[in-house]
């Protein structure tokens, strides 16, 4: 079975927040973001002078913690590995919000229902890629099938960022040591 997941190229991400805003425009979330940019200190330079950024949303875990806690059974995992919330079934109890170890689920203040990244399921059904991937100016985000043997070399975690492993998050990190991009601002 497929398991789609995000591949984050750590060295490429600028922290420009294009992914956040494109997602917000696409899904019309006024108050909250489905996707967030995190910043980390550099592994080698721990003095805080250099930072890495990476973009994170729902990790579409292999064993999603949100799924069994939903009393309505509104959360399901599709055969391609995408975890989605059935809006028609969601009662807005908020149990999934507290159970997610990655803070990926938020309550939508307008609908009073749970909301999270669905990996642009509708766009993917039309054969398009996710809006965040298409909006990234430096191609720091990618969608991959993590069960594909070609994708086994990527890292499951990143230095300095505590991640809950019990749910088997479907996110992979790629840290390329050579070919670092540098940007200067006037």
């Amino acid at each position, binding site marked *: 079975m497929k398991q789609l997941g995000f591949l984050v190229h750590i060295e490429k991400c600028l922290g420009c927040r294009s992914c956040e805003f494109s997602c917000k425009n696409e899904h019309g979330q006024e108050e909250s973001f489905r996707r967030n940019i995190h910043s980390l200190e550099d592994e080698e330079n721990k003095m805080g002078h250099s930072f890495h950024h990476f973009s994170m949303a729902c990790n579409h875990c292999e064993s999603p913690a949100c799924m069994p806690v939903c009393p309505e059974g509104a959360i*399901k995992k599709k055969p391609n590995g995408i975890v989605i919330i059935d809006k028609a079934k969601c009662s807005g109890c908020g149990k999934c919000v*507290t*159970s997610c*170890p990655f803070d990926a689920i938020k309550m939508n203040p307008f609908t009073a229902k749970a909301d999270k990244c669905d990996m642009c399921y509708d766009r993917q059904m039309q054969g398009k890629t996710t809006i965040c991937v298409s909006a990234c100016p430096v191609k720091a985000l990618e969608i991959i099938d993590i069960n594909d043997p070609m994708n086994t070399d990527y890292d499951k975690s990143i230095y300095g960022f505590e991640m809950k492993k019990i749910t088997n998050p479907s996110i992979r990190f790629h840290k390329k040591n050579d070919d670092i991009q540098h940007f200067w601002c006037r």
Partner: protein
Amino acid sequence: MLTIQELISAPPFLYAEIMGGWKGKNRSFSIVQNHSISLDEPTLLLLTKTQSTIMQLPEYLSNQDVQGILLYGNEDLFIPTTIIEIADSYKKPVLMVKEWNPESIKQTISDLEHLKSIGLFQYVWERSTSYWLQLMNEQSLTAVLQRLCVLLGQNVLLLDEDFQFHTGNEVPSISNVRVLLKSLSKQPYKNKKEAYTIVENESGRYLLFHLRSGEKHCGFILLQELPGMVIDICIEQIIHAIPAITSYLMKEDAVMLAHRSYKDLFLYNLLYNNLESEHGLIQQGKQWGWDFTKPTQLMVMRLDTNTDFPKGNVDLDAIMRKIRSLITAAFLQAIIFPIQGNIVIIVFDMPDHTPKVRKERMVVLANRIHKEIEHSLDTMECQIGLGRHYPSNMQLFRSFYEAKVALELGKYESNHRSVRHFEDIGIARLLSNVHNDLLHEYYEATLGELILLDEENDDFYMVTLEAFYNHNGDINQTAEQLYIHPNTLRKRLKKLETILNVDFNQMEDMLKIFVALKIRKILK
């Protein structure tokens, strides 16, 4: 001169029904006549299919120049068993065709004789392939095998790639064949490129035909080599039937593959809450013979390679077969399948058990499975996690998650058990849903000072604390493990109480440290 066996390998006689006397298939004839008056050469007698003809058959068969009888016509007539027995005793074949024009039959036979005389009879055989394909499409594999058995006058065995009997076969009870198959399975016959191979054992010589489509090997046909078989047309008959059998097996393989992929998808949907209704679940389950009206219990088994042994290939199918046999021995039915590197076992239980009884029964069953699997696999460690039972089988996705949590978090228990139920993993169940940041914060606030002291002064306070909790607060056992006097331990515990600002006589303080130690294990 044509033999009757050659005649029946050519259309339209391929469709002929063999009524009896087939042991005389090698009888040859030079002329075809539709009366029995003044015969002086080996003759195939052509007779119209009527009741009076049938009654006269014994008389015709007794004539020494009659080599066989071909009955023609569209009538459906019953031939008494006694007449068939007479044909068998004379070893003179009696055939029946639907053709009604005797002149056209005579002409066809004369054409066949002519083709044989000029050495072009193989073109006739080549046309027989379409007959076998037609028979396969119109009837089934069993019909093709039965027809082959009749034509060859012996049992034709269809075997799969692993030399097991195919389901289309009538499985013989001869032990010699089974012994032969066992010895064949040990030899690399799959790579042979020849049409057939001769194999021998004590019971005789056998011909092993290879069923192959391109590079794909589909199976074998096995039959005993009878005297004269290699020089007559038996081999040709089988070789021309093989494309039909191979195409059937390939089609069967493709159907199996599609069926299996739908089954995998159904099971995935069941475990990940993708099914819409309970009715749909019950209906779909029926396709594979699963009764989802019964209560179920879900288990997840994980196999870890033992560190003492080098990594090797694990035969998951053999393990699943073993599990199935153990569950069947407990008079239960189960679905067993691999997913995400684990083996999932869904056991259908009796509906009249209370939840407590059901849990106990399933834990006992899981323990038995664990014991047997670990016993049979020296190089592997096996662990089983059980989820809770839910009233509806639509909730199996919850049970699946719980079983995985039990499997994952159970390893942080102080008393290590290989079979763990979600209800029994205690406080780790709550900790599984708390963010790592919060866990880290709690652990740092509770034990941070102690760890710092240990690092600075090279002390053993953390080791002492862990040993004390692992022995449930027993001073003597803890002291024995640490190789110190109980009074020394008491002194250390007093010091620990001061550093941690707790009282080990207070349950609340004990629990606070216990949780911090558990978090330490989880975060590690």
